[in-house]
């Protein structure tokens, strides 16, 4: 196996052009597990840990440009205000060691339906920046996940950054696991209120072949909020509305039975998480703290 160690982004992109089958290596917390278990024998590894450009985050107006190599630990410590949903999700990833190594870019690269970054990025309406020697493009998170563990990046491209607007309203993330730490999601749910555009967005994890939004539930809720002037009045939400939202989130999922949980439980838990996260987010909004 060849080991390509890039130190600049242009070197990395050139290498990827030359050898599109080279597997990018960021924190290695997915890649190394696959290699150790012999699930994958790539001809080459492309080590990105030395590429400074990927390690940084910056603000461009109110948009956070989160380098693909920023670790969960840094997201938690530095971006809790701007990206609260992602920070909450980051807090649930693995153990301190994994959070110190693992990156949001790696999570996107793996594109596992159980990855914890996906629901908050879907809810926030992120864009993924993909680069190759021929140029840079951005893909909406809505179009990023293309199948089980596959995404919209081309073989000659690298994920270079995630672009997310700084939160304008409350965000929540909730994840079910059969232990209270260090657990792969049985199911997960992200929710973001966007009062500036009067929209609610969601993200469902571990309950369909790919991470996905509950689009119908979102529009149901957004129009109900609009209809009753709730964005302005910030009045309490009717219990029936919250329940109906939960049921519609559940209806958006297509879970399976597996070793981590049953499809029925996943559906049930999504409805509960949707209700609860909406309740918390709305309470924040009504309290005017956000």
């Amino acid at each position, binding site marked *: 196996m060849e080991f390509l160690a890039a130190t600049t982004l242009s070197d990395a992109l050139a290498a990827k052009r030359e050898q599109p089958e080279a597997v990018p290596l960021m924190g290695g917390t997915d890649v190394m597990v696959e290699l150790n278990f012999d699930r994958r024998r790539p001809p080459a590894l492309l080590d990105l840990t030395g590429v400074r450009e990927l390690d940084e985050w910056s603000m461009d107006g109110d948009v956070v440009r989160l380098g693909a190599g920023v670790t969960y630990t840094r997201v938690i410590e530095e971006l809790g205000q701007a990206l609260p949903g992602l920070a*909450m999700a980051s807090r649930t990833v693995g153990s301190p060691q994994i959070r110190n190594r693992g990156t949001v870019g790696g999570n996107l690269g793996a594109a596992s339906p159980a990855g914890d970054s996906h629901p908050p990025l879907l809810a926030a309406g992120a864009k993924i920046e993909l680069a190759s020697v021929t140029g840079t493009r951005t893909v909406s998170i809505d179009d990023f996940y293309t199948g089980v563990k596959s995404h919209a990046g081309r073989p000659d491209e690298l994920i270079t950054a995630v672009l997310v607007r700084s939160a304008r309203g409350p965000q929540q993330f909730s994840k079910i696991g059969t232990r*209270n730490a260090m657990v792969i999601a049985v199911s997960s749910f992200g929710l973001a209120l966007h009062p500036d555009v009067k929209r609610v967005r969601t993200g469902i994890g571990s309950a369909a072949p790919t991470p996905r939004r509950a689009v119908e539930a979102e529009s149901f809720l957004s129009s109900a909020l609009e209809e009753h002037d709730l964005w302005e009045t910030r009045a309490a939400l009717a219990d029936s509305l*919250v329940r109906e939202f939960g049921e519609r989130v559940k209806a958006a999922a297509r879970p399976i039975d597996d*070793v981590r949980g049953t499809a029925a439980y996943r559906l049930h838990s999504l409805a509960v998480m949707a209700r609860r996260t909406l309740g918390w987010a709305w309470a924040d909004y009504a309290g005017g703290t956000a």
Partner: protein
Amino acid sequence: MPPATPTEAPPEPAAPADAPDATRGDVAGGVGHSAGRPDSTLKVTGEFAYGSDLWMDNMLWGVTVRSPHPYARIRSIDIAEALATAGVFAVLTHEDVPGEKTYGLEVADQPVLAFDVVRYQGEPVALVAADHPEIARQAAKKVRVDYEVLEPVTDARAALGHATPDLHGDQAGQVTELSRAAPYLHPEGNLVRHLKIRVGDPDPVADVVVVGEYDVGMQDQAFLGPEAGLAVPDGVGGVDLYVATQWLHVDQRQICAALGLRAEQVRLSLAGVGGAFGGREDLSMHVHGCLLALHTGKPVKMVYNREESFFGHVHRHPAKMRYEHGADRDGRLVYVKAEIYLDGGAYASSTPAVVGNAGTMGLGPYVVPNIHVDCYGAYTNNPPCGAMRGFGSVQTAFAYEAQMDKLAAQLGMDPVELRVRNAMAEGSPIPTGQVIDSAAPVAELLQRLRAMPLPSDLDGADLRHLPGGVSNTTHGEGVRRGVGYAVAYKNVAFSEGFDDYSTARVRLEAVAGAPQVTVHTAAAEVGQGLVTVEQQICRTELGVDTVVVHPKDTQVGSGGSTSASRQTYVTGGAVRAACHRVRDRVFALAAAYLGETLDDLRLEGGNIVSQTRGAVGSVADVLGTEVVEETTQWRHRRTEPIDPETGQGFAHVQFAFAAHRAVVDVDVELGLVKVVELACTQDVGKAINPDAVVGQIQGGSTQGMGLALMEEIQISEGKIRNPSFTDYLIPTILDTPPMPIEVLEYADPHAPYGLRGVGEAPTISSGPAVMAAIRDACGLELTKVPVRPEHIVDGGADREVSGTD
């Protein structure tokens, strides 16, 4: 039906009973002190060499070819391509096993390498040795085994031809085609052992009767150091094996049989053991490594990876149990009927002894006048099951304690009160008729637990204190608190007449003018701290500070198994006995040195001290160049087999008692659980090392809690679905609650220093206490262990939850 006549202890060949003054708690680093471990610095700094760190220049790497099928006939094995691979030195099959082709701890039914059939997924079929681990792994894939796949037998009751419950659970079990069709997996059939206890009235009647069926899943020992060893050929037909194991001599016996060698030709040394919990009692790579080493003439190392480890050792028996308890209106037990099925998997391993424990200990620490127990161990094509901490008592405790709570609810009685009313005490008969002849403070353990303050109410401010933790699933919604109690009792050391001894060699000499002791036993240190205990006993008995623990090997006699909570008792007893002999010889030397015989001597602070005259000489001076060495075999008191029809007999050496109170918060809407506190009381007779005792209680409590909440090897059609730590979950520190612990010390007059085995009892009662607390919180029966979120949610489907959500 036999009357419940108490069974007396068989006559003692020797009187091991102990004068209490033998315990001198005042020696620094001695018995009763929390002496530090000799290997602690190495372990904390990461320098301790575990089995997987073994290394020799020019060594080869051995790899095991395993069956992908739970049950299949082997038509042929073609090794040609694998053998032709560059770098490969040997490919071996059952044809290369020179001695006995099968081995086993109690029954030699397990092939060293499979022939004719494979009976479980992961069964070793062939071996490869190569000069690089990767080459060995790739070559292993080229061993072509032609299998005729057979329908596996995966239900213990069906394997025995017994009734199996209907799928919906709404009809009584029936003998179906499944049971009629189960083939014999071994020539004698699928029954490994059937234990019966029959006491008192066969048709008892009671005012109140509760029936329950319980199902305990397959737990794994989940030790962190995978199976590992290094076999080094000696060039003259013998072999030295360095291996992480639990009982060097029982390994040696089995390896010799398989290799056709004598004991002198197969020498074992203990490699660093990264946890065991019973999972290293059976052989893993031992014979395989030796075969490859002898075949190639080179050292061969074998290390399993995490996934292979799940196939490389036995697990805890899953159990299906039906219990019926009858009591009078005052809550006094009238009778218990129990039917217990333990799934032993493909090979016997220690199933007969596990059945022995589950059957004889399976009613808990309660006095029961009329008893009818049937406990079965069966062969199936599931993964082999054998020893694991708590050994049969863990499974049954889930059932008997759930039954006690059910009975209390039926009677409208406090569950602790019901237990206290039926608690065993010193002088009580146990179901096998044996009378408990030392402290049995069951009632006190419960009362002390109940007197401990309860933890404060739900703290919603910190997510880590809530069910789901930082996963942020609740801010208090749906959360209900529950409290549950459970009690364990466990036989210590080997039961049913087994000749269970340990050997110790103790040497005393002067080194550079200071006395030094070397203690040499073959008893395996697996992390529990026996090495520390050996040092402590030498310090106390010989008054010498510097005690070197000789590496554990077979150059000294057997130390018996590191299991059954027995090493501090039995090897500790042997070390003490050897120390006494050494001491007596030093006194004889002192007499020569002093020119007179004093009969009030003791060893203290490196000196020989007379009660009346004070220090009369230093040990170093008295010894001069003399090396005093003594080797002693030591036995605990004898036990006897139980009667095969009635289950009566003096079967057990000693009993350990522990009790737990669990406090849990359950999110009843999501089925997630946070254990808030797990309090424990345990009688340890004498805490030889108080810190180590607390460590055992914390670890055992956590392991038992893990079984209640999450630990399960999931099997489907005989195949393991979760052979990894991604999906075989064990509690993390964030799942582990504060543990208030009270340690009682009621000396057992039959045991050295009055001690009781400690390690297993807390593993037995913690899980049932957690289950009781969860039931209390949700008001559900919850008969399946581990409890999964969907059980709580499904069970409470109609529950209306009030809350802010």
